[in-house]
């Protein structure tokens, strides 16, 4: 009898082991040309604003391609979308078009789940600001076309600024810290009641790293990675240096020397909407939440102030990608061309706010929609935009650093201890270099 169950167990294991292999043949050949039969175009994304925009422009697209009967858009909140990507892309169960934020898409681009751009799509990207190419290029080819770019900006509570006697938005980090100190309010026990500047001290690791990247590293003239001078396409840690030290020291000083925030205070957009922070660094989309949850807050936005070593902000963009296993590739490409055309971008900016990636495009349209969003739609002269790179290891690098940072920020003993800050920096650099080594992307 034991033998019987053993045979049964082996049979079941073998069945499931072989059952995994069959999904590749299930896909049908994609349509590369125009079709005589009706077509339904499918698009998945995680931005409700863009869903509305695509639905609004679809009738115009239909005039060009009447056989496309329907644009079927599946919207998912970003957390669900990211989980779904990891399952559907390897399984090949994909829509015709996917709109994904660049930082989430890089690992799937390098894994080969999307089609590289055609010459026509590349021609569109060529008319856009050069910074966009950084988040689209891998191995000399481009993947995806920017559809909704945005950058990291500052949200200011104007009433708190007036109360503290501040009459203009900070233009440099010195002014930013000075203003944050003036606007910080403490409880009787010494804890923060209203933070002068809301600091991202934890949460989703990638997000924690991104904030450290823009507030700390970019302002101090360094980046997370540096490309090898001798071996292009290979990288090493870019912040194991003076700039990186200054970036980490800035965080430690803001927490323990200037005390503009602490770990217990309300954070981020929730704090800004509740009047519990004077300055918040965020993406422009958080204005929706502020308007909903803090309708009485008197606010405006401004670009990132000039850092001690550089004036930079990061550029994030939703890109339209065509999955390798998609079915209606011809129409998918045509729709991407149509939606990202100069005319449609102008329409998007004019009617819904936002920013146009085209080099010579006027950016005032978005400001007309909401003047408070001036910081989001104007790039000051001299300010450079940095985008996330398309690297195999980058996602892991972001997560691993983001996992280390909360403990580093919580370590009070780092205050005034340069040696200890350097030690932490070297630890982080080792993690970054190890990640590049793991993906065979490391070189000095």
């Amino acid at each position, binding site marked *: 009898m034991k033998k019987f169950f053993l045979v049964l167990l082996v049979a079941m294991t073998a069945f499931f082991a072989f059952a995994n292999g069959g999904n590749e043949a299930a896909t049908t050949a994609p349509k590369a040309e125009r079709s005589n039969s009706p077509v339904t175009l499918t698009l998945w994304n995680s931005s409700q604003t863009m869903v509305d925009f695509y639905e609004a422009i679809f009738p115009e697209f239909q005039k060009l391609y009447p056989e496309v009967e329907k644009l079927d858009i599946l919207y998912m909140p970003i957390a669900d979308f990211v989980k779904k990507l990891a399952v559907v892309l390897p399984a090949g169960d994909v829509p015709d078009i996917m709109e994904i934020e660049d930082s989430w898409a890089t690992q799937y681009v390098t894994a080969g789940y999307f089609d590289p751009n055609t010459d026509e799509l590349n021609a569109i990207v060529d008319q856009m600001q050069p910074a966009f190419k950084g988040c689209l290029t891998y191995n000399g080819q481009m993947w995806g076309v920017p559809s909704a770019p945005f950058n990291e900006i500052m949200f200011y509570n104007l009433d708190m600024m007036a109360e503290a006697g501040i009459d203009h938005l900070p233009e440099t980090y010195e002014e930013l810290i000075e203003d944050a100190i003036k606007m910080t309010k403490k409880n009787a026990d010494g804890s923060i009641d209203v933070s002068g500047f809301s600091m991202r001290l934890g949460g*989703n690791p990638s997000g924690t790293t991104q904030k450290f990247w823009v507030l700390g590293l970019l302002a101090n003239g360094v980046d997370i990675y540096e490309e090898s001078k001798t071996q292009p396409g290979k990288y090493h840690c870019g912040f194991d240096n003076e700039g990186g030290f200054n970036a980490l020291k800035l965080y430690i000083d803001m927490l323990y020397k200037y005390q503009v925030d602490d770990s217990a205070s309300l954070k981020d957009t929730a704090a800004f909407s509740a009047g519990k922070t004077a300055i918040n660094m965020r993406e422009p989309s958080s204005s929706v939440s502020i308007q909903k949850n803090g309708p009485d807050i008197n606010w405006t936005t401004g670009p990132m102030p000039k850092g001690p070593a550089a004036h930079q902000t990061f550029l994030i963009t939703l890109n339209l990608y065509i999955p390798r296993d998609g079915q209606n590739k011809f129409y998918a490409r045509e729709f991407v061309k149509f939606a990202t055309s100069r005319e449609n971008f102008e329409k998007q900016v004019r009617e819904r706010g936002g920013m146009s990636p085209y080099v010579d495009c006027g950016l005032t349209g978005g400001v007309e929609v909401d003047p408070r969003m001036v910081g989001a739609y104007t790039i000051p002269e001299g300010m450079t935009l940095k985008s996330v790179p398309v690297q195999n290891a980058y996602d892991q690098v972001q997560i691993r650093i983001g996992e280390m940072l909360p403990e580093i920020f919580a370590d009070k003993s780092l205050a005034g201890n340069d040696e200890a800050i350097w030690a932490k920096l070297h630890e982080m650099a080792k993690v970054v270099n190890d990640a590049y080594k793991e993906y065979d992307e490391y070189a000095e």
Partner: protein
Amino acid sequence: MKQLNKQKTQNYIFAYSILIPIMALFTIIRFYPIISTFITSFYKKSMIRPGQTFIGLENYIYVLKDPEFLKAFGNTAFIAFFSVVLSVIFGLFLAVKVNGKSIKGMSIFQTLLFLPVIVSMVPATLMWQLLFDFNVGAINYILKAMSLKPVNWINDIRIVRWPIIIISVWKEMGYNMMIFYVGLKAINKELYESADMDGANGWQKFRYITVPQLKPVTLFVSVISIIKFVKVFTQAIVLTSGSQSAGNILKTAVYYIYQQGFALHSMGRASAASIILLVIVLVLTWLQMMISKEKD
């Protein structure tokens, strides 16, 4: 004789026709994932990239050398130890109280104590998150009312393990109470009557009758609690996630597995960490059973 054999065969056929679907289901949902996890732990395998490479014990070496795993394991051990000890002690204490003299409305009291067991962990943790909140939480409000300093329960790395232990004990002690309660009901009342005649006091009866008689139940409760608390995950992730907290400050072993598998997409390392955790639980259970046997 022939008739008897035929009957026996028919019985066997009937028994196996009933058992085979259940065994098949059990194989699919229990054995296959364990075997598959064990096999995967020897491969370099990404969740999002096709193909896999056999790398022997490399995943195990990586996990055991990874400071993040050691940190996560340390947190898990700390939480599991205090949660097991406290939930067993409180469970036993409540069972003894509930088993005492019959009080009016005792069944309502029992229901209230058992209620946390059936509440889903996510909403329960969200409720506790509000209670532990530094700024608006009821616990700090009480502390302030008592002229004590408010505690940064969720975002202070030195403290954050305690709210997890409190939530875990609150959630589990009702279950332990019920098991102990059943155990107490099974103790022969004559033992207590004899002790009464010998003039034993309450503590002596508890120490020399209740505790020894409940030994098998205590072993069962402890083993079950260890298995549950070594897998601590939901309460840690819900309590400390989000940009409102110093999130991910409290990494547990299961969180590490989740992170390796679903954030870093390294199924090989996630599998290796899972097997290590499985071995640890097996060893702890075996040790506990051996210690108990030794004492017997």
